[in-house]
């Protein structure tokens, strides 16, 4: 099965280095999360992977072949981007037709079903729809084109809670029906934390985490207890942030704990969820809660 490899990709806009030496791989039939703060370079990365823009250096390959100007590879990927690339005046049904024309086939049955569920009129002109419905139309196309790699850049932008719920359900349904690789790039980490099997965290143009979701959570800890005891325990560990509440302190740690160390009775060790871990990893900021 095909695999996509991102190999030392760097992208500069003028002097600004948006992506710094990015390397990772996408395996077949896996759901990935691509997380990063605004401006971390997520969209730039996805745009390079689908050759909408070019890398300053490095390359993206599928089975050792460069994606650049490769019709077969491009026809195996779909990027549902934040920006709208469809003509304003085009009708929704025409957008489906265009996708069929270019990709060679299109799951109309599913598309019509989804359009009905989300309440999209097929005869509506794309430009006349709201942001939320722009997202929905693009999501429908993304789930109905015959590709093995689907990339979502902010898929639920402008969607209300009900439609978001529906999207996640349809995504998982579609994945079960036809397993393929999904990459979901989003700010709403909590909503996808249990869906994604593997997570990439992009911070300031660098991949800071590339691991299985469960493994990441297994390696992230919150150590809570009296200030002194916590500080003593976490010396030399990879502390990514901390919180204090009066004499109580929590250190957030990403990485292995020292098994040799004795855990004092007064401190409590818990795992941290993905969202919290993300916040501390990408902010590096310290929150002091005063009494």
């Amino acid at each position, binding site marked *: 099965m095909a695999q996509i490899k991102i190999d030392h990709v760097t992208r500069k806009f003028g002097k600004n280095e948006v992506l710094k030496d990015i390397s990772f791989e996408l395996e077949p039939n896996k759901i990935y999360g691509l997380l990063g703060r605004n401006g971390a370079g997520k969209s730039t990365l996805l745009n390079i992977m689908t050759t*909408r823009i070019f890398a300053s250096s490095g390359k993206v390959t599928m089975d050792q072949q460069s994606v650049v100007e490769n*019709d077969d590879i491009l*026809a195996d990927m779909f990027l549902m*981007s934040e920006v709208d*690339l469809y*003509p304003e005046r085009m009708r929704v049904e025409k957008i489906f037709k265009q996708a069929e*024309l270019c*990709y*060679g086939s299109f799951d109309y049955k599913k598309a019509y079903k989804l359009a009905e569920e989300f309440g999209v009129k097929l005869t509506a002109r794309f430009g006349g729809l709201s942001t939320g419905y722009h997202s929905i139309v693009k999501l429908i196309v993304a789930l109905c084109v015959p590709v093995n790699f689907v990339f979502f850049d902010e898929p639920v932008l402008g969607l209300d809670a009900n439609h978001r719920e529906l999207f996640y359900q349809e995504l998982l349904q579609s994945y079960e029906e036809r397993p393929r690789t999904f990459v979901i790039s989003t700010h709403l980490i909590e909503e996808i934390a249990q869906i994604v099997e593997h997570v990439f965290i992009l911070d300031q143009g660098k991949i800071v985490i590339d691991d299985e979701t469960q493994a990441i959570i297994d390696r992230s800890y919150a150590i809570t207890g009296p200030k002194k005891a916590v500080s003593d325990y976490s010396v030399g560990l990879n502390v990514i942030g901390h919180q204090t509440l009066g004499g109580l302190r929590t250190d957030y740690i990403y990485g292995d704990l020292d098994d040799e160390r004795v855990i004092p009775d007064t401190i409590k060790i818990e795992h941290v969820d993905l969202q919290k871990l993300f916040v501390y990893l990408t902010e590096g900021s310290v929150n002091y809660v005063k009494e």
Partner: protein
Amino acid sequence: MLKSKSNRLALYDFNRSLIRLVWTFVWFVGITIVIPVLFSITFNGSTGFKLNSTGFAFVAGLYLFIDALMFNYDNFKWTIQNGISRRTAWWARIKGILLLALVVLVIDMIEMFVKGQKITVHSVFVGYQNETVGTYLIAIVQLYMGLLMLALAGLVVGCFLALLNKRGKAIVIIGFPVVLIVAVTNLARALVHANIDWTGIVNFSKIMFGYSDSTGNFNPVNSSIVMLVWILVCGGLSYWFSQKLRLRRD
């Protein structure tokens, strides 16, 4: 795979261009025929309609240029969204243009036929004007190539403009004519004052058009080659520009 895909796209492009061409004609007919006719009926009581005053061929030729010039970035947007490489999109566009130019050629010929003009009017090949099938054929081929020159010139400009953002486009569209006018006036002024030996340029032109001093005839092969070179250069340039297309943030 590549081939069938670019063919499908070419037909899609062609269909859309054709629809736009029909609309262009509707407007053209409305503005140049219907309104004047209505006016003359109102004021003179007669139609005063003259077929010879219409210029479908001219409009179609102009349309060919404009159609190739416009929509290049829009095309790029939806083709890249749908996983089409720049090369395939470009190749489909070229094929679409070849088809559209053929349609325009047919329109040209129909108009000439209706107006009772001889096709050889377009041809200046003295000595080839004996109205054989060959001369007709050469004239038609040259007309087709002329249309392609027009369309591909439009494509080169269009592909170049597609690389620019809104500001860059504004600068080029406003700046280029200004620069051109200044350059031409200065050049003309310089030429008037300078004493230039024109024979070299004249001789070069003669070769380009295949003019023979001895017979006073034009050889169509020479001009055909010149046209072909133009078409190939424009095709190459448009390919080169289209390879550089990328998604802009505007």
